[in-house]
């Protein structure tokens, strides 16, 4: 379980970092790469949170990860 959490955290950081790169690079109309990367970040974060909650509820995670 711990490795899954670490992988999710790394993916979240990667999507956030890519969004920062797009903030720097993209200008003008029709540029949506930043908001898309941030939306992926939010989706991954909510998935991780729900996974932690479900893991605890179904007994896959005990007191500590």
């Amino acid at each position, binding site marked *: 379980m711990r490795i899954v*959490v670490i992988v999710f*955290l790394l993916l*979240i*950081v990667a999507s*956030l970092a890519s*969004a*920062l790169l797009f*903030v*720097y690079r993209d*200008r*003008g*109309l029709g540029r*949506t790469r*930043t*908001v898309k990367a*941030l*939306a992926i*970040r*939010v989706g991954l*974060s*909510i998935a*991780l*949170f729900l996974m*932690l*909650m479900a893991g605890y509820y179904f007994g896959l995670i005990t007191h*500590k*990860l």
Partner: protein
Amino acid sequence: MVDQAQKYYVPEPSRYPIFGSIALLLMASGAVMWMNNVGAGKAVLAAGVLVLIYMLFGWFGAVIRENESGKYNKRVDTSFRWSMSWFIFSEVMFFAAFFGALFYARAISVPDLGSLEHRQLLWPNFAPRWPESVAPGGMDPFQPMEAWGIPAINTLILLTSGATLTWAHWGLIANRRGQLKLGLVLTILLGVLFLGLQAYEYVHAYTEMNLKLSTGIYGSTFFMLTGFHGLHVTIGATMLIVILGRVLRGHFKPEDHFGFEAVAWYWHFVDVVWLMLFVVVYWL
């Protein structure tokens, strides 16, 4: 011949940097006086906060006016993007230091104190564990913070605020101003709710769990990490309020909204730091 549009705008000398320095001096002096029970400490700290608010209003306002009057060209825009990137780099290093301190205490120093060498030379009966519950000089019993309850609710609140901000972001790009305004208002309200619950959790920790900043390395790292994160939520919410004020005045366009995007990214960054805190501090 240099084209007018290519000239780099250089503002007039500003009084705000010196006001910022005065604010920091007053705040630091006031806080130190307050901690050492000097009577005027609170008043000096409050004066520092007031000077800081004056500086923020004045400086933000000056930059916004310069931007809206069209003084900034593409090169100035590039400077803003670079400065934001370096600011973020400093923030990453800031939190890396505190996460590093937590890692060092948990993975290296506390286990090392329980090694045979240290038990023979220093502390014979020490059994390392985390949260640590014994110390050389004795330690008041305390209850460590659980992930359930307020921390889990606060995680959900911050993640929801990330979703509402992204919704507002799409609204700006699609020129749906109502969606942009509502998304920003919801994000700010969720941020304030997070801070309120965090304050409640601190009061609960101090009064009912005997968990304090002085509760060994666990208490120190817990309050330093979560406290500085709370400060960053406050900074982020303040910036979002400024952005909302600008949106209400009709600022930002689908093709030109770096100010909005920089603040939105900062909020997402603070959100991710909390997610890491939730996993590392509360769950591990």
